[in-house]
């Protein structure tokens, strides 16, 4: 990563630089996907093997993200050792400008791959002040983080990419592939081929049993709108909205290497349309704003007069009308303070809902000021128990992890979520500790439970209970059925002090719709309640 010094005297022509950038984007996209796939299986299959090293490696994209790390540090008032990796990006930006955006960022790469050029009938006029939005967003995020709120981190491009990949894109691809396989598997002569293909891709790429995530459409909609905005202007997101882009843009103003347009420029204007972020502008003279330039080299490769170079020197910082200035800072500070204040003063009843079950070891209040909303816990959860909250955890808890036992249970042999969490919002518990960690408590609805309400045989919850002493026991009882037959049935009873609330009973309960045995928060979890 550090080997790319873009000095004009390095011997590469602008065209070669351009090619190199495209390879770099491809390489980092592939790396990102490989890490994503790796993380899905690695943590629960090999929980003990080099967990902290794996965690650092798999979370590299997030750890290199200075916005996430700075905001997280401010909100949680702690500095994680791994977060210092973000300084690499900061230093790189101070040396070379916004190379992160142009060369590495997977979301930026994707936006480059889908320019939606053909959708544009005519160039819409977008006001220049809109570029200031990303700075305001950045400042609001950082000020809110000062007040211990991280809700807006869901705008960070890396977390956007992670979440969407986990919740929407991968499951949808899985469904499509499964659908095609299912159809072809019915054809007798294709069976061995499909069977062989299937054992190649499962369980290494796709899971062997379909995964379920709620609100996949919503998450994808957010992502799709980011891509669709490309139709208005190339990399609309990076130009106007991306808070990380704002942060790197601010740093990029001071960068050593900058795009420079010589006075020999013939004003042919070809670079205007080539520039991904519209960084090349003109008022009296043609210039490139280093705060907007992503060092993509497209302009240099295209310049007929060869007037565009990338010299390394200390340049004067030129303030643009859309850049950070005092008024923007004050507006953001006010907005953040007011917003966080309003959230705090709102006694959100949802946040105290007994169904708001968090991953093992999480303390609700701390989660809100430590979770960066990346959704990695949801990625690695082998049973899909961890889902991302939309309304369940209140406005502050938007896109924080919750456990939904009816979708998945907390596997007795898995502590992957705590292992993968890049910021220890979910504590990294050892397997022994996690097995004893109380998440909630199960309770039986005797009006719906088959043996209790219908005198039918069912012991599924007892059978599934992973606690060695069984936190659900069966009480044998003689009953008289409605047709006057005497019958011995076993009725499940929860032993509350043994139950950890893993939720496998709720997950497997055969009663349709809502389970007849459900996990809810333990009274102990309400200790910080205001009531």
């Amino acid at each position: 990563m550090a080997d790319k010094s873009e000095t004009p005297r390095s011997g590469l022509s602008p065209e070669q630089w351009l090619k190199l950038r495209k390879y770099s984007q491809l390489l980092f996209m592939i790396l990102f996907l490989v890490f994503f796939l790796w993380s899905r299986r690695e943590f629960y299959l090999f929980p003990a093997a080099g967990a902290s090293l794996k965690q650092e490696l798999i979370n590299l994209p997030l750890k290199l993200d200075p916005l996430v790390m700075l905001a997280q540090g401010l909100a949680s008032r702690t500095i994680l050792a791994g977060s210092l990796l973000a300084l690499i990006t900061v230093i790189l930006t101070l040396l070379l400008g916004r190379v992160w955006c142009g060369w590495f960022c997977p979301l930026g790469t994707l936006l480059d791959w889908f320019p939606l050029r053909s959708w544009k009938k005519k160039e819409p006029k977008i006001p220049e002040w809109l570029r200031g939005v990303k700075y305001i967003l950045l400042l609001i995020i950082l000020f809110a983080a000062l007040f211990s709120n991280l809700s807006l981190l869901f705008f960070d491009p890396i977390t956007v990419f992670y979440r969407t990949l986990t919740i929407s894109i991968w499951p949808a691809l899985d469904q499509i592939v499964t659908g095609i396989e299912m159809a072809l598997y019915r054809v007798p002569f294709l069976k061995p081929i499909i069977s062989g293909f299937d054992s190649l891709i499962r369980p290494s790429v796709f899971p062997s049993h379909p995964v379920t995530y709620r609100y996949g459409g919503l998450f994808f909609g957010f992502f799709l709108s980011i891509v669709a905005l490309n139709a208005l202007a190339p990399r609309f997101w990076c130009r106007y909205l991306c808070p990380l882009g704002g942060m790197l843009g601010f740093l990029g103003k001071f960068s050593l290497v900058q795009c420079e347009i010589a006075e020999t420029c013939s004003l042919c204007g070809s670079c205007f349309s080539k520039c991904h972020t519209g960084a090349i502008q003109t008022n009296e003279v043609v210039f490139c704003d280093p705060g907007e330039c992503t060092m993509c080299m497209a302009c240099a490769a295209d310049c007929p007069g060869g007037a565009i170079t990338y010299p390394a020197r200390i340049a004067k910082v030129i303030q643009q009308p859309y850049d950070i200035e005092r008024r923007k800072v004050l507006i953001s500070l006010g907005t953040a303070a007011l917003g966080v204040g309003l959230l705090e003063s709102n006694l959100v009843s949802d946040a105290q809902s007994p169904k708001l079950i968090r991953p093992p070891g999480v303390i609700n209040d701390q989660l809100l000021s430590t979770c960066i909303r990346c959704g990695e816990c949801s990625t690695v959860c082998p049973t899909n128990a961890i889902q991302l909250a939309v309304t369940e955890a209140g406005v502050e808890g938007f896109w924080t992890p919750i456990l939904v036992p009816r979708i998945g249970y907390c596997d007795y042999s898995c502590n992957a979520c705590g292992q993968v969490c890049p910021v220890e919002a979910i504590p990294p518990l050892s397997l022994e500790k996690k097995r004893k960690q109380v998440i909630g408590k199960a309770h039986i609805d005797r009006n719906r439970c088959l043996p209790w309400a219908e005198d039918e045989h069912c012991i599924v919850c007892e059978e599934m209970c992973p606690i060695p002493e069984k936190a659900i026991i069966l009480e044998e009882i003689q009953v008289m059925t409605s047709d006057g037959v005497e019958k011995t049935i076993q009725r499940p009873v929860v032993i509350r002090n043994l139950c950890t609330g893993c939720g496998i009973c709720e997950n497997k309960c055969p009663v349709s719709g809502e389970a007849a045995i459900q996990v809810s928060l333990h009274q102990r979890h309400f200790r910080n309640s205001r009531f």
Partner: protein
Amino acid sequence: MNELSRRHFLRILAASLGSLGGLYLTGCLNQDKLLSRSLSADKIPSTTLLTDPTSTVTSPTETDQLPSTPEDTPAPSPTMAYPDLTVARNGDPEVMVRKAVKALGGMKRFVKSGDEVIVKPNICVGYHSYEYAATTNPWVVAAVVKLALEAGAKRVRVLDFPFGGLAEQAYVVSGIQAEVEKAGGKMVVMNNLKYIDTAIPQGQDLKSCKIYDDVLKTDVLINVPIAKHHGLARLTLAMKNMMGVILERRMMHANLGQRLADLNSRVRSSLVIVDAVRMLMDHGPSGGNLSDVKKADTIIASPDIVAADSYAATLFGLQPDDLAYIKKGAKMGLGVKNLDQLMIEEINLG
């Protein structure tokens, strides 16, 4: 140009979707045909063994119910009658398996050269290592794999579908993956794709269910359960072990005994080897307490699934009639539950 290419694209799309749909439809047709054909002339190895003339005891119901397929009959030595069930005790797990199978006539009686073999151990959860007796002993599974390969099996696959945790994890945690791979077998993760809606012609309560395709198609299915406690069934043994090859298990519990018998009438185990090296006496099927584990160092082998389960029940101090699925299975003619009617060979290695 743009117009044309779009039309072209749509045309290709329609054609490919159409052909896919066509393939799907022909697939459905063939499936039904195949199904009916496979039902009439299904190769059920255990059947042949039960109706084998050399078998010492056959209850009348068996011969009524089970279609005999003489062309599949293996060539046993006509002079020697094999025991119905063998029990090996007090030895190393692998040695016990080898002795027990050898006394039954050797693995060649069940596995012919070039056969596809599937071994179905009980790997119900991925929580504990084998010492906790929730999952089949790895060395027992490995011994079965070795025997099958020695008998000339083309490929030996080992699979189960745990209810707690994922298969990949359970395979590793149970210790079975390591031993099976050392023995030359292949651990297979079962996936949703291959559960096929299958009719159960002899089923009395369960008329059809989704059964794993590979298990239905394999030449030889060797059922290697561990003997352990279960809340509803009282014990989970070989017949209960077949729950692992179906997709929707929730609906089994309503009438577990009959439905297990129905399932076993369709998915026949060619050979049953009950692992009672360690038995889980309480808090089954998931276990987790070493104090619930009893070391019994016993291996039971039989081609008769009902007989194997009946004998295993006695290890827990129960009678075959105490277990609903044994009663129903015997009634359906899946095997013999009355141990007095069986020729049993006991081998003590201690």
